């Protein structure tokens, strides 16, 4: 495994899992937007067994 950051190529999609539990969809396509929408309102509580309750998904639809 390399320590170098992976550089996106045309056609790649990127999802990041942040330490604080957020899921970031970087410039998603339609499919990933649907996934992000499904995940909104969900949260993984590390102390419980896969409990989903709060909002933690975010996406950047428009490029920045």
């Amino acid at each position, binding site marked *: 495994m390399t320590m170098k950051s992976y550089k996106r190529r*045309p056609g790649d999609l990127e999802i990041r899992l942040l330490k604080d539990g957020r899921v970031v969809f970087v410039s998603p396509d339609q499919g990933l937007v649907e996934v992000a929408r499904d995940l909104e309102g969900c949260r993984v509580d590390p102390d419980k067994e896969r409990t989903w309750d709060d909002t933690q998904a975010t996406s950047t639809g428009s*490029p920045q």
Partner: protein
Amino acid sequence: MKENAHREALERSRAMRDTLRDCRLCPRQCGVDRLHGQKGYCGLDATVRWFREMLYGREETPLNPSHQVYFAGCNLRCAFCSVEEWNLQPEAAQPMDRQELLAVIQRRRQQGARTLNLLGGEPAVSVHGILELLAGVDVRTTVVWNSNMYYTEPVAQALVGLADVYLADLKCGDPVCAERLLGATDYIEVVRANILRARQVGDVIVRHVILPGHLDCCLRPTLEWIADQAPDVKVSLWGEYVPPAEAGSAPQGYLGPAEREQALRMAGDLELHLIE
């Protein structure tokens, strides 16, 4: 779109296409002959290319649901670009088939798209193809020109009456940051002039991506300029900055709640017309 402008769209497209033999669509003023295959800073010859379309519900509220069409190629090199791969290699995107894209636009409209959102990359470097496309789009369509606004006067003129909403992505408020983060020293003066021009012919939403650590150098002067020169425009503060994976000149962290609140307070103090 305005009916008279819509009728002129094909003619405007041809005129813009003619200028590609000595391309000066943007302040880079490359002067290359795109009609004969030369490519300038944006990496495009005369072929218009697009890489994604989608129905999106998280643009600014008045625009949603918005049908986004992403055109490849850009005249800036933002250090935090989230679609950089398509701007560095625009030839990887598919060439625009006008009839095919018109059918997609029609289908998205039937699915509930309230606006047609033209973005990239930077749509200005593909303006000739976009005008040709708009000539075939239903005149009642609300067209959003989602742009970095870094283009020259002929592009601005060609858009009059065709762009209903200018979603102006105003990124930096300091020339040093503009050079370091976007690769364009003249960015601020060019973009601000185009926003003032757009305000005379359409609805303007100024969107500013809040850059962590750039509130005093970029956000504050941007908001103060809006308050002074264009207090009527709508302002959208985008708090979802995503740092690039590779370390460089761009901020490396995510925006925290304290900076987000500070930004909103700045805008509130200046009594700007904030929208979400």
